């Protein structure tokens, strides 16, 4: 207690101390003998590949899972977290990767659900609820009306609501599970501003992220998990980037973004003056064989909407599409697939894969015409097709009949990509292809994209991660508020140029 470390920070005694935590699920040892410490006023990064046990630990901390063994101490006192409420009462709150909030309720209701302010008759005090919610939102500089329904907010705004909720219960320990996964560059900066404020307010923060640059930017401490064990922990300023990567994957990752040189061929896809009544305006592009075209912009810049219109999900109001020299009209995804344009959506679970169905059924779904004979299914052909692409993508699965939902995020993404490759497309559009997947799978997806380009596929990659855009793209189109804000060649492209184009000139405004 009195042995103060020789740093400028006054209190580095941990507020939370977990030791010897173990948790076993049928067939899987999710955590074995894990330790973690969180300190007030500091951010601790929790790093690990998917399946390393991070989520299990978060669920133990928030009272959702019970550990099989081990100790949890808060302020030096041993505590039990039998329920989610118990964890909340002890001041522990979590902001999740895909935040669980209530779409149909207002912002204020979301912030105060479960602990609504009451008036003297025991009824909900709506005025107080809205006033307090507004105060909290003001405190984190979030310009959101408390009466807006959640479904009308962007993903970034929802995160702000989740943070406001954490503050409303006066949490001392805030867990952020991949809070930046869906955020654009500028929104991440804003989030970091809020984290700074939480730090100054003395909160202990556990920050889970796949993005190393973020970890270096805002964290002071780290803990690395691998295969359910804690393989390293300490102060970040005492380790190097490479040390962390090695700890995390147990091997060296030579290059995270390995774009191979590919021969750039003829124009495959030509889009001219594409417009949508509300989402985008006058987008034109040319895409060549072997080329990876990066599409960068803030969330809400109209990138996904543009791609979905190309794929026939939504309908453009003007503009033409030419594929291999022939004008095409795409009215539905099946038209697009027939023409040779496929789309790997951002939301894997909702749009990308049918998670309750097997790997083989997912991969064969758009190719059933090929694997079947006169409309009659041939399972052997489907298994052959699925196995071919599963092996090409190095899919990790116990069997091809396994439901896709039981795979890790990275492997689910491989199934979605495999499904499209099996249709032998000309153009593949990948919308945030590595969102929320671990660094090992990420490198595999990048290597694979690059391989596709070498094989002559034309690739459009929507991404909000600057290193990914810089590393993978031959050319980059930046979109801002539904319009093209710039086209850049790979040579000499800088992150600053991208951000400037994406945010407009007046960075501080908006």
């Amino acid at each position, binding site marked *: 207690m009195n042995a103060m470390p020789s740093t400028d920070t006054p209190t580095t005694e941990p507020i939370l101390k977990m030791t010897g935590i173990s948790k076993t699920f*049928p067939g*899987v040892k999710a955590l074995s003998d894990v330790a973690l410490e969180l300190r007030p006023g500091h951010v601790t990064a929790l790093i690990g*590949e998917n*399946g390393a046990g991070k989520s299990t630990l978060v669920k133990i901390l928030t009272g959702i899972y*019970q550990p099989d063994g081990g100790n949890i101490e808060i302020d030096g006192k041993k505590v039990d977290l039998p329920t989610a409420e118990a964890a909340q009462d002890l001041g522990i709150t979590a902001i999740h990767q895909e935040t669980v909030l209530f779409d149909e309720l207002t912002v204020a209701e979301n912030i105060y659900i479960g602990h609504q302010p009451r008036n003297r008759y025991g009824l909900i005090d709506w005025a107080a609820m809205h006033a307090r919610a507004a105060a909290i939102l003001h405190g984190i500089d979030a310009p959101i009306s408390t009466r807006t329904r959640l479904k009308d907010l962007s993903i970034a705004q929802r995160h702000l609501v989740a943070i406001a909720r954490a503050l409303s219960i006066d949490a001392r320990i805030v867990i952020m599970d991949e809070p930046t996964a869906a955020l654009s560059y500028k929104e991440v900066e804003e989030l970091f501003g809020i984290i700074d404020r939480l730090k100054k307010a003395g909160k202990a923060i556990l920050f889970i992220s796949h993005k190393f640059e973020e970890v270096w930017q805002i964290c002071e401490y780290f803990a690395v998990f691998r*295969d359910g064990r804690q393989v390293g922990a300490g102060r970040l300023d005492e380790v190097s980037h490479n040390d962390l990567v090695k700890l995390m*994957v*147990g*091997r060296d990752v030579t290059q995270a973004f390995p774009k191979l040189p590919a021969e750039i061929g003829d124009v495959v896809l030509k889009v001219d003056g594409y417009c949508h009544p509300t989402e985008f305006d006058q987008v034109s592009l040319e895409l060549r064989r072997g080329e990876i075209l990066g599409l960068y912009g803030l969330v809400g810049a109209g990138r996904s909407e543009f791609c979905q219109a190309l*794929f026939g*999900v939504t309908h453009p109001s003007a503009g033409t599409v030419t594929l291999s020299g022939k004008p095409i009209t795409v009215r*539905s*995804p*099946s038209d*697009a*697939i*027939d023409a040779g344009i496929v*789309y790997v*959506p951002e939301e894997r679970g*909702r*749009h*990308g*894969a*049918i*998670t*309750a*169905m097997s790997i*083989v*059924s997912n991969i064969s*779904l*758009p190719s*059933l*015409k090929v694997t*079947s004979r006169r*409309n*009659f*299914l041939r399972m052997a052909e489907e*298994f052959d097709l699925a*196995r071919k692409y*599963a*092996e*090409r993508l*190095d*899919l*990790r*699965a*116990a*069997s*091809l*009949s396994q439901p896709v939902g039981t795979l890790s995020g990275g492997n689910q993404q491989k199934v979605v990509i495999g*499904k499209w490759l099996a249709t032998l497309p000309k153009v593949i559009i990948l919308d945030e292809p590595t969102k929320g997947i671990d660094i*090992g799978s990420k490198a595999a997806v990048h290597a694979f994209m690059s391989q596709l380009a070498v094989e002559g596929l034309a690739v459009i990659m929507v991404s909000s991660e600057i290193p990914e855009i810089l590393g993978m793209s031959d050319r980059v189109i930046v979109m801002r508020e539904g319009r093209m804000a710039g086209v850049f060649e790979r040579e000499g492209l800088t992150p600053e140029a991208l951000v400037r184009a994406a945010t407009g000139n007046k960075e501080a405004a908006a």
Partner: protein
Amino acid sequence: MSDQSAALTPRHIPDRLDSPFKRAAKSWETLLLAVAIAIAIANSLASPYFLDPWNLSDATFNFTEKAILALAMTFVIITGEIDLSVASIIALASTAMGAAAEVGAGTPVLFLVGLGVGLGCGVFNGFLVARLGLPAIVATIGTMSLYRGIAYVVLGDQVYKNYPADFAVFGQGYAFWIFSIEFVTFLGLAVVASIVLHKTIFGRQVYAVGNNALAASFSGVKVRRIKFIVFLMTGVAAGLASVMLTSRLGSTRPSIAVGWELDAVTMAVLGGVGINGGTGNILGVVIAAFVMGLVTFGLGLLNVPGIVMSIFMGLMLILVIALPLVVQRINNRRRVAR
């Protein structure tokens, strides 16, 4: 969990882990079949008349028409929708056939009228759900009132019963020995439904739509077309059931087949078709149809009145659905405790 050194050589992923036998042993259909056999044994012990072949043959009449509805309903429920208008389609189709018979239509025409009205009603349901995007439960509750309402307006408290003598063949004829035309038709349709659902592209797409319509459409499945077709199928199935029922009864009243939509849904659910869509199979529904037929028949032999029978049916449905859930929950709890 992941073995990094093996990443260089592609690993072989097996098709499936369970053997076909193991999967069959754990399946819902096996459980249902056991229930069916148990009921059959109990029935044969309780009544000496149960095992008489002609008695058994008679017993098939009280569930085959509903079972034909249930076959089509299975497709609708697997796509995540529901069709509550089937019984009303029977009434409307029967009324149309009665009216046609009044003006002297022959048996082939009556048959086509019955199927045609069913098809038309199915098209209208499909239009409401697949084209206009109405929730199926709302749309088909609407058409449930609409179709039967028309039958009541046309018929009032009257009865159509001037059917030609040879019209009786659909509901009263025998294909061979003790096997009625109705029963043989049902078995034939069950085989066809099973092939369509489990062995064709359409069938696979039905499952895809029911599991995640959005992801299915992102995979190129024409979701609206699939939904339209399944409603068309329940319409035609109801038309066929109407031909059989009208032929068997030899008369039409507007109250014909009241409540059958729930019997059809019950058969499907009892047969293991998940009410949220995406799961279930034809074999289960066929066995469920037999289970329900056996129960009604057995209770009938024991002179249990119809009202009590419906209590019994309800209890059986809840029991059969709840039991596996309870067992699973107990298993899970034991696992967590360990």
